[in-house]
């Protein structure tokens, strides 16, 4: 499980995060939504240990961080990029694991291509593949799908959902897109603007996700419900 306790953050005089407490169960998918500047990205970076904090965060050892813009090395091929994090973490058997990971995201055959030759969706699949290949216990996702077009975005949401059900990692997703949060999550955390704090935690009542769930009235109701909570901050 991931425990966030008494986490707060000041940037000089500005209080970015008020005291945040949150427990995330092992294998749970949590999304954090909130208006721009509510500190949700900062919270994710505090969990990742990229930003220092006064509070405390407990988390499993093996994790991965997926960034908004794929964060691929432009001078490395697809093969080189999918092996990057294994190199940094000194993982064995890189070749074989990379081959499996690329096949899982449908990038086999592109091993020798460079990132600039891939579409936005393929870049994100590569970014997800190089993280999953670490066999992480948790994954932090910072608006990973915000750079792709709407159709690709829904397909990638479905793929991400499949990865989660298959590999059973704990996931924390920061997103602007409420429907995305509802589609993927067990719980959606709603945050208020500066100083950022948790104002609501919404349980998502659906068990199995299939693409057609998006058109169901219950789905729209949950989405509108959360949108309503967010609107009060405008």
């Amino acid at each position: 499980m991931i425990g966030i306790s008494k986490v707060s953050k000041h940037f000089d005089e500005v209080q970015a995060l008020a005291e945040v407490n949150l427990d995330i169960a092992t294998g749970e998918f949590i999304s954090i939504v909130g208006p721009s500047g509510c500190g949700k990205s900062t919270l994710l970076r505090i969990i990742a240990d990229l930003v220092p904090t006064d509070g405390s965060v407990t988390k499993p050892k093996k994790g991965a961080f997926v960034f908004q813009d794929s964060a691929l090395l432009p001078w490395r091929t697809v093969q080189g990029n999918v092996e990057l994090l294994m190199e940094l973490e000194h993982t064995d058997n890189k070749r074989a694991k990379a081959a499996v990971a690329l096949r899982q995201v449908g990038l086999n055959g592109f091993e020798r291509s460079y990132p600039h030759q891939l579409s936005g969706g393929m870049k994100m699949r590569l970014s997800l593949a190089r993280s999953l290949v670490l066999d992480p216990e948790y994954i932090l996702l910072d608006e990973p799908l915000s750079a792709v077009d709407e159709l690709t975005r829904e397909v990638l949401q479905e793929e991400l959902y499949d990865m989660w059900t298959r590999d059973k990692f704990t996931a924390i997703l920061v997103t602007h897109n409420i429907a995305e949060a509802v589609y993927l999550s067990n719980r959606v955390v709603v945050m208020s603007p500066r100083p950022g704090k948790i104002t609501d935690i919404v349980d998502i009542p659906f068990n199995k996700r299939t693409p057609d769930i998006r058109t169901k009235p219950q789905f729209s109701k949950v989405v509108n419900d959360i949108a309503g909570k967010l609107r009060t901050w405008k």
Partner: protein
Amino acid sequence: MEIKKIIPPALILALFLGGWHIGALIYDMAFILPTPFAVAKQFVSDFEIIMIGLGLTFRAAFTGYVIAILIGITVATVMSLNKVLERSLYPYAILLQTVPVVAVAPLIVLWFGFEIKSIIIISIIISLFPIINNTLLGLNSTNKTLVELFQYHKTNSFTNFIKLRFPAAIPNIIAGLKISAGLSVIGAIVGEFIIGSGSMAGGLGVQIIYAQAELETALVMALILTATGLGFAFFITVQTIGWYLMRKWHESEMKGS
């Protein structure tokens, strides 16, 4: 390369040579402005001595250039790894650029003697700053997200440098090397001007001084063109290396984008 790409610069060259030729004919004073043909003829008739000069200047400029590359990249790397050192050293790196090298050259010769060593040192001084500056710029402007990715995986600064910051800086490093390619030759010529020589058989700079004193203007121009060609050859070499390193991934070197 396609013919279409060659036509515009070739046209400019033809216009330039034509204008020069007509101008020289109207002015009609060969010791002030010889025609392009006279320069070409001089180049052919003095080919052997010019090649000796080219060899000497090449040796000094190339040695200076290579040493400047090694020092420049090392200094920039040290500065990028240590902010205190960067703040302490960078102002002096700027002075390296603003010091009038031509004025300092006599001092260098005084200290290091009338020999190739002094020429090489002058070439190094003049080539160094663009390499330091561009390498430092490249090493300090690594994509922030990529820095965070490496930071998340708790890599040490050696790994950061080898796998991230240095490769990311290659486009800037090559840009710095391109600027310094011509400068290294300029430095060598300046050094040769100051040093002079007991005979005509010196580097290109020495020969220019001699030919100018003899009012052999066509020879001066042939020597200038040779020195220009030398700097150009350095430039093209670096350009080719840069193309080879970046052809697959960097916008500046990829076809059709």
